[in-house]
């Protein structure tokens, strides 16, 4: 089990809830802001990682993403069928709100 496997499950849970093409970027942006108080680009630059390859991030950051994406996927799987909306934007907004709430909870357990 690694970060990529967990992330695949996370993206599948977004897709299964009807997430559109922009929902994945937004989910990543939301969890990164909530977990690390910066955006993805800043996280890679600030930690000396190679952008686009999460295995180059510090282990603590990789673990935070993995834990959060696992819990966020659980929550989205639980909500499946109850997330609806008239437009793609509305559905994406509800998915992102779910990811935001999970990420806020995860953040409480992180040591930084």
């Amino acid at each position, binding site marked *: 089990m690694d970060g*990529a496997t967990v*992330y695949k499950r996370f*993206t599948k849970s977004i897709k299964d809830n*009807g997430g559109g*093409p*922009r929902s*994945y*970027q*937004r989910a*990543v*942006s*939301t969890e*990164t*802001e*909530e977990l690390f108080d910066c*955006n*993805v*680009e800043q996280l890679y630059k600030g930690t000396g990682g*190679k*952008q*686009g*390859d*999460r295995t180059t991030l510090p282990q603590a950051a990789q673990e935070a*993403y993995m834990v959060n994406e696992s819990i966020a996927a659980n929550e989205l799987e639980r909500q499946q069928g109850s997330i*609806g*909306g*008239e*437009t*793609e*934007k*509305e*559905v994406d907004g509800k998915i992102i709100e779910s990811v*935001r709430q999970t990420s806020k909870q995860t953040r409480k357990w992180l040591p930084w």
Partner: protein
Amino acid sequence: MSRASPKLTMKLTELKQHVWDAWEFLNEWKGQVLQPENFVAEVKRFGDRRYKRTWVKALAHFEAVNAHQNCLDAYMLILNDFNFTPDRWDYEYRHEILDAFLMYPDSLDLIKTGLEQLLSSDFTPTEQAEAHGFFELVEERGGEPGRIGLPIGSDRRLPAASPAA
């Protein structure tokens, strides 16, 4: 929910809404849009707002910045961000968005990393095949003069990943 159906030309009103959505996402922090009054001035950077081409340029730029800024896993550029298919609302502007992304000095490196990840054993052939919109885009660009091509062949292999002769 409604999904955009394939269409030949997007109406300006709809295009403006997508430009706003992309700009809003770019300027959002923890769910709050920062300084929404700056939107008009930022679109003006791309030209006269009475012309559709100005809005297309703005859309391509904001979408490219969003794709770059949020690129946690490079393979998502291939599997999602640039995996344009006719059922997506942004299909019509696929070349403009990719062109804007290619303005980043590290853009080709990110795409190469994404392809290496996607074509590794971490992904099944079925998952790899889901990126057909991206590969079709690359093939389209191969025959277009003036377009920046991508350093991959139609056999979907990277030069560095090709077996030694």
